[in-house]
Structures are given as structure tokens and as C-alpha cells.
């Protein structure tokens, strides 16, 4: 996800969605969708995990922080988890994570959890297409660009400090230092 461009050949923005699919159900369903020649939007990048319970909230937020516009998690239906409890653990974390990302300024609809069994290739197609539509409506999230924007104040000051310290290190007194060209706190 390191390239910053995320555009269709005609130059329009298109969402980039990271999907964490469990090995036993949703990934197999995506496989089924593939061998059944179903077509769904090409915006998702599927990462296979052994279980939706393996989806560490850090993975989800790291995906956003590295430029994902949406994150989709797919797991086995309740009572169907290969590891008995993994999908419940995922659901509990998901519900709190939704609240936390909302508090951090990310629209909760950018994160979605769906239970998709190995037989539900059609559901993979529907959910992926819906998710892409939802995220298209929301527009780009663009967190890496925000990090850059935030750190401009650092770089501006770094240049100023380097200039003033380089100018005359021993003689220059501290008093006429912080001449930042910023406006006052009005």
C-alpha cells in the first residue's frame, strides 16, 4: 500500500479496501466466488488469516494508518467457528473498535464485519460490492497524507531552528530566537 496513487485508468479515485478473511469460511467463499466466475469490485486486497479471531485491532488500524480507505473482516457464522470461539472474540473487539475509530475521527462505516460461510460465494460478491459502494460515498480517508500535513509544522520549525542555530551558535542569545512567522493565537 505504499504507492500513494489509487486511481482508475481514467484518473478517478477508487477506494482501497483491506479484507481480512478467515481461512475456513470467508476465504474459501471468496475462492468459491472465483471458481464460480462471479465478478466483484477489484478494490479489495484479501489477507488470509486462520480465524477472524486472529484479527488484532492493531492490524485494522494499521491498515487505515497506511492508507486503506476501508477494512472488511470476514469470519464464520456464529456457532460455526473452526476454533469454536474465535468469531465471538472478533465480534466483541469489532464492536469496541467501531466506537474507538469513530472517536478518532474515522467513519465507523469504513469498518465492516460479515459472517460468510464457505458456501456463500454469492455473499462475498454482494458484501464486497456494497462495501466498495459505501466507501466510495465516504470518499478517500487519506491518513498518510494527514500525517504529512501534521508534520509540516515540525519541518517548518526544524528549518528555522537549523538556520538560527547555524547562524551563530555561541554568540546568539536565546532571547531573539523563536521568530516563527506564524500568526498570533487569535
Amino acid at each position, binding site marked *: 500500500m505504499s504507492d500513494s496513487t489509487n486511481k482508475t485508468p481514467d484518473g478517478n479515485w477508487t477506494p482501497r479496501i483491506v479484507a481480512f478473511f478467515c481461512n475456513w469460511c470467508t476465504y474459501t467463499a471468496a475462492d468459491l466466488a472465483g471458481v464460480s466466475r462471479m465478478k466483484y469490485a477489484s478494490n479489495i486486497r484479501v489477507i488470509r488469516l486462520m480465524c477472524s*479471531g486472529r484479527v*488484532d*485491532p*492493531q492490524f485494522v*488500524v*494499521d491498515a*487505515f*494508518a497506511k492508507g486503506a480507505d476501508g477494512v472488511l473482516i470476514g469470519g464464520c457464522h*456464529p456457532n460455526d467457528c473452526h476454533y469454536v470461539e474465535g468469531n*465471538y*472474540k472478533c*465480534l*466483541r*473487539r469489532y*464492536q*469496541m*473498535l467501531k*466506537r*474507538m475509530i469513530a*472517536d*478518532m*475521527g*474515522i467513519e465507523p462505516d469504513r469498518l465492516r464485519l460479515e459472517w460468510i460461510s464457505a458456501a456463500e460465494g454469492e455473499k462475498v460478491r454482494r458484501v464486497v460490492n456494497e462495501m466498495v459502494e459505501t466507501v466510495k460515498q465516504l470518499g478517500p*480517508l487519506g*491518513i498518510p497524507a*494527514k*500525517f504529512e*500535513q*501534521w*508534520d*509540516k*509544522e*515540525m519541518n517548518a*520549525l*526544524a528549518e528555522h*531552528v537549523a538556520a538560527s*542555530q547555524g547562524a551563530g*551558535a*555561541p554568540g*546568539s*542569545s*536565546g532571547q531573539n*530566537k*523563536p*521568530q*516563527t512567522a*506564524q*500568526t*498570533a*493565537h*487569535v
Partner: protein
Amino acid sequence: MSKPKVAFYWCASCGGCEETVVDLAEDILGVVEKVDIVLWPVAMDFKYKDVEAMPDKSILATLLNGAIRSTEQEEMARLLRRKSQYMIAYGACAHLGGIPGLANQFTREHILKFNYEDGPSMANDKKTRPQLVTEDNGRTPRLPALTNVVRSLDQVVEVDYYVPGCPPTPKITRAAVTALLENRLPPKGSVIAPDIALCDECPRKATKPANISFREFKRPHQALMDPQKCFLAQGVVCMGPSTRSGCEAACISGGMPCTGCFGPTSRVRDQGLKIMSSLCSNIEPKDEQGISAVIQGIPDPIGTFYRYGLAKSLLRRKVNLPTD
């Protein structure tokens, strides 16, 4: 041979870290004997220009506490970095952003407006705010600017070691200073505290259930607590499982749960998300409504899980806030 030079400096902090240095008690005399303190604004009178006049790398170590959130703090951090062989982030604010890092949920304008206009204890009819530049009888005093984003020290300058805690305990402070003076330093970038979760040294460890199951989350004031029993077993959010040990469970020994000031262990990138993951996966209900009811018991997840770590979290700051 001249004694090694040491500087103490404070940025966005409460002063508690300075207090810990004093809390070394008699041991501080041993330290003072072995080093030359060249800057310590809280206790001694040195000028910034004294530091500026020193050759680069002439200070053995700077112990800097506090987050970085003003142009002056950033400038001093850079200056001291240049003059010091070792830059040590001392305390939770320099290490993780600390309590001041929670300001990353708000804009600079919001913070200034509240503190100079809307705060309930504020009497400021003219809505005067600090000005960066003013004219006063022919002088032009300048004030540092507040930055939009609160940063940990390592988000501003290269940091060699971290001494965690809010504040660091005298014991780990002593360990860090001793390691420094005896040149027994761990690999660069180390946090000078054990790399294992707090539960390991918790006096209530024996009562931590193998399977925790939360029917509800309680805040410490909402129930009478059993002073011997693991907080998690009592349904209270304790950051112990995702927090580095080394404080000897000071808060827990005082009857309060861990709030996470030592930061995560080296295996964890985002302390808040990790403890959330751990606690929430152990909620008892399996259905959406049931889970929802339980997590309502944590009214402010950001303030709870990122009490000290917001500035160093994966997102660093509320992402939809503007910078001005």
C-alpha cells in the same frame, strides 16, 4: 578528569518527573557527586545560552521529561539533542506523549478557546489570549507557539533510551542513572524497565483467573473492591496485561488499577488497541446487544486505553481534525 555533564529539562509536563529525581533521596547525593549538572531549570539557575555555548556532544546525557507541544520545547529538544551524547526520554510524556497527548483529540483553537474563554473558572471578559508577538514600551516580547499536534520526544528528535512511568519510580531512575554512569547501557532504543507485562510482578497475580469473563465493566468508584483480588476478576479495567512492568505494581498496591503509564512491551505497537483486544475478547455475551451493553461500561475508551499513549498510537491524533 572532569565529571560527566548531565542536563535535566522539562517540556509539556506536570513536574512530577522532576519530583522523582528528588525522590532519589540520599542517593541523589551520590549522583551529584559523580556528575556536573549543567541545566536543571526546575531547581538551578542556568540560562539557555550557557547550553548553547557548550560544544556539541559535550553533555553525557540529557534526561528530558514532558511531551513536545510548543515551538520552544521543540527548539530546546533539538538543542539538547545536539549537545548530548545520550538523549533520554524520561517519564511517560516524553516516552509516549503522556496525559498532554490526550489533547490530540482536539484542535489547537478548541483548546485555546476553552482555556482562555469558555472554561468555567475563567474570568476573561476581553477574551485576551497569549500573543506570539506583542509591543510593550518599545520591547517586543515573543511567546512560543503551541503546536497543532502533541508529540512524544522521539517524534521530534532521536532518542537513545526511555525511562518509563508517570512518574518513573526512584528505583528505575536509579537503575538508568547507574547504567549510564557505569557505561553498562542496553542496546540503543531500549526502554529501561523489564520487557514483560505488569501482571508478572503484581501482588494479586495469584487471583487472576485463567479464564476471565466480563459481564460488566465497573469503574473503581462504582463498587467496593476486594483489596486482595485481581481487578480484572472484579470487572475493573486494569491495563496491567498490556503494560510494561517495573513499577512494582505501585498503583495496585495503593488499591487502584493500572492505567498503563509504563507503556507497552516491545512486542506491542499500540498499547490501547492491545488492551482493548484483550479485555473485549473476554466479554461474556456472544450477541450484539449483550456485548454492546457490556462495553457501555467503558464510557471513554480513548481516555481509558490511551491514557498515556495517544500521541504514540498508530493514529497519533484524531484524524479528521484540521491543522491551522
